[in-house]
């Protein structure tokens, strides 16, 4: 059994799985049930000056029958009285002293920040998260992402928080910026103890084609909202990784964005996150998902011989490089396992229309490129008549094969093949030494 407990800028929790600030952390009753289910920590639904929420406020992106691949909301911060929230927080902390309880805050004036930080600490919170991320509603009032997008304001408010707080201060970043390093560095320079990211991405989830209005529909009208859920994971991964490998960022990172499984969590941690936070997946499936987050991560660490979750953190960071550092001479080719192939020809059509025309089939006239292998270097300006192949010896007619000399190893076929393990990308010997674009340009410069 690996040790899953983590310490995040001085805050201990029995596992790295925290609930992100949002509907699942809206009330004491909910957070207590979440802790009973096994969550290691929770960032309370953002507190601030009481607001009024719209009723119709969520939208989702479904893909091919998969529900809520992406999620979008136009909800604001808490709409419950501050005194009620603080009373509940105190009770949660009293009942669950071993879990991390973080107060998420968003107000305007220095005096308001001082007041809320004080009341959060009085309620027993282990840390404060500054919500500089909300991309809708609050930013129009000069808060949320309006702060996160303005490094000077971000630094100023972070400075106030550090001045007033005795517990660690986390800054939650908005992804709605050109370069995440800019607000990240600003927060660190202002002495933030940790960074959490990402908040939601500015988005418009869909259009109601009957009412001719953006979704979610509020009386036949709509507005942009914040995007999250599994679909945003790649964006969050990139931003977390970018901060993790930046020498200017020396504080722990709390990764948020599209985490649904232990594997997502492990990927974020390998890319530098010290812990993770989850919102949408819990809204979709409930607190119970933490059971497999814990068990799956445990099994994974054991299988890899990694003793603790903390040890996993950052293992993939050194391999996260610039494009120009990668080896131009690295060569792989697609390899089809005829025994597993079910004959769907999705690899064939993907390679034909979307890649390099080098998968062939004997089942019907084959429209692929049949010239000398040249990786597309010679002109291909006519459509050649399809070729009739004899089935390959040893292959049934419906199993396609790869012209390895022409294959550029782009992975497309392996990505579309519906059968696990059927197409693998095999390393083929390359006669050339490792050569990156930077090295190549440098030697070209030398010659010139």
């Amino acid at each position, binding site marked *: 059994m690996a040790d899953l407990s983590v310490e995040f800028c001085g805050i201990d929790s029995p596992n790295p799985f925290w609930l992100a600030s949002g509907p699942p952390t809206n009330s004491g009753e909910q957070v207590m049930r979440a802790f009973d289910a096994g969550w290691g920590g929770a960032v309370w639904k953002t507190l601030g000056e009481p607001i009024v929420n719209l009723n119709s406020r969520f939208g989702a992106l479904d893909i*091919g*029958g998969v529900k809520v691949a992406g999620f979008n909301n136009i909800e604001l911060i808490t709409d419950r009285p501050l005194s009620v929230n603080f009373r509940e927080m105190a009770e949660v902390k009293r009942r669950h002293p071993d879990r991390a309880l973080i107060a998420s805050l968003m107000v305007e004036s220095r005096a308001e920040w001082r007041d809320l930080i004080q009341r959060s600490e009085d309620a027993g919170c282990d840390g404060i998260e500054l919500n500089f991320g909300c991309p809708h509603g609050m930013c129009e009032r000069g808060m949320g992402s309006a702060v996160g997008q303005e490094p000077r304001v971000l630094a100023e408010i972070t400075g106030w928080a550090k001045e007033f707080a005795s517990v660690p201060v986390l800054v939650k970043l908005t992804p709605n910026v050109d370069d995440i390093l800019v607000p990240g560095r600003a927060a660190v320079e202002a002495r933030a103890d940790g960074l959490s990211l990402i908040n939601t991405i500015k988005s418009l989830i869909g259009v109601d084609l009957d009412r001719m209005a953006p979704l979610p529909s509020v009386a036949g009208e709509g507005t942009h909202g914040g995007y999250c859920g599994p679909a945003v994971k790649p964006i969050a991964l990139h931003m977390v990784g970018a901060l993790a490998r930046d020498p200017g960022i020396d504080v722990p990172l709390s990764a948020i964005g599209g985490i649904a499984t232990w594997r997502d969590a492990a990927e974020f941690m390998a890319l530098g996150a010290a812990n993770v936070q989850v919102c949408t997946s819990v809204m979709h499936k409930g607190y119970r998902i933490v059971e497999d987050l814990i068990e799956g991560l445990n099994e994974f660490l054991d299988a890899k011989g990694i003793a603790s979750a903390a040890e996993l953190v950052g293992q993939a960071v050194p391999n996260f490089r610039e494009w120009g550092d990668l080896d131009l001479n690295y060569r792989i080719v697609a390899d089809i396992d005829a025994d597993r192939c*079910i*004959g*769907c*020809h*999705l690899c*064939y*059509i993907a390679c034909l229309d979307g890649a390099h025309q080098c998968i062939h*089939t004997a*089942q*019907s006239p084959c429209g692929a490129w049949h010239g000398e292998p040249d990786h597309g270097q010679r002109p291909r300006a006519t459509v050649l008549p399809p070729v009739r192949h004899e089935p390959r010896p040893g292959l049934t007619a*419906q199993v396609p094969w790869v012209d390895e000399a022409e294959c550029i190893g782009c992975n497309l076929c392996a990505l579309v093949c*519906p*059968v696990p393990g059927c197409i693998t990308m095999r390393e083929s010997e390359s006669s050339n030494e490792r050569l990156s674009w930077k090295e190549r340009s440098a030697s070209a410069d030398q010659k010139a």
Partner: protein
Amino acid sequence: MSIDPVQQWPLGEGLDPNRLECRFEDAKPPYTPAEALVEANRCLHCFDAPCVRGCPTAIDIPKFIAQISSGNLRGAAKTIFRQNMLGASCARVCPVEEMCAGACVYHALNGQPIAIGRLQRYATDVALADERASGRRLFSPASANGRRVALVGAGPASLACAAHLALAGVSASIYERDGLPGGLNTTAVAPYKMRAESSLAEVEWLLSHGVELRTDTTVGTDIAWPELMATHDAVFIGVGLGQARSLELEGPGVWGATELIRAIKNEPGFELPGDVRRAVVVGGGNTAIDVARELAMLGIAEVTLAYRRSRADMSAYAHEWAGARQSGVRLQTRLQPCRTVHHRQRLVGVVFQDAVNGREVELPCELLVVAAGQSPWAALVDAGIRLNADGTVWTQPETRATSLAGVYAGGDCVNGGKEVVDAAADGRIAAHAMLEEWGACG
């Protein structure tokens, strides 16, 4: 939401609601929208898909399933009908296990092929219901081009051919011997797959594209073949197969299979005799299995299928036999029927010879059904058309043209008795060949 296109159609109104077939429920009931979406989303959208090769009309199956997923149900129905104007009945009656779904790649992936027939039924049912409700036609015929075609027999082959012709602006007239159109779709197909009213609803829809139908008109008797040929630009022969070959078992309590099925399906107020507790069906093909299963489903306590050779020799599809067995039909093999046993003018049993030991065995029963297959029409020779040795009509494979110029043929009378979808394929191929011949192919 009821999505069955039936009752509303006038032709079906002539059917008696007290037909025995009305007691059957659908073996594969229509999908709800939720069921259809779950199933449609499973489809991998194969390229050069094996399921398409398995369909005699080569419907673009991945395309119509993707159209169900995207919510374009009218588009899905058009994809189906463009290749197969009998797509609605085929969705119900096709032995998909032997055709499209039998070829689905999911057999190799997890053994759960896509339910293509049920998805096809969903798409066509919903689109046809929408067409009726909205008045927006799926297809509108081209303007008349002056060509006239006569089609003999109103079964699937002629209906498909006529509909494709009508859409291309040809004046198509069908001559049908019976009072009801639809051929075996109306009179023979197992009622747990499709009842006569659905067949007639489909016929009505096909006719609504401008096809003319004359029932109670036998070509060769009421109109001479030469007259038909002389007055039309082309003639399509879709007469199906003829009378069953008799096995020389006769007497009270003895029925031919197609006769009995037809009575169950079409005859107003028809009932099985009340004293029948045991039935014996002689045969090993799909018709024998159908009738045996129908009898078992109608509540006859003991239904025995008696076949003269081994289980492996039976021509019936494996899935059809599995269905019959589930309904309680028992099988006895290697029994050659010899004679019936009657007592006071009532059937009490059938005597068989056991092919293994030569001994005689008597199976007691009150009903005997003989499924002996159908035979091709010798009468077509009179019309001067070349027949094959087995009596089927000779045609050119690419065009379905017969040996007589301007005369085409398709369906059971050409293939010796296959499926509805084969007849639909022939009808379309012949229609396109005619249009191409006239340079009218759009």
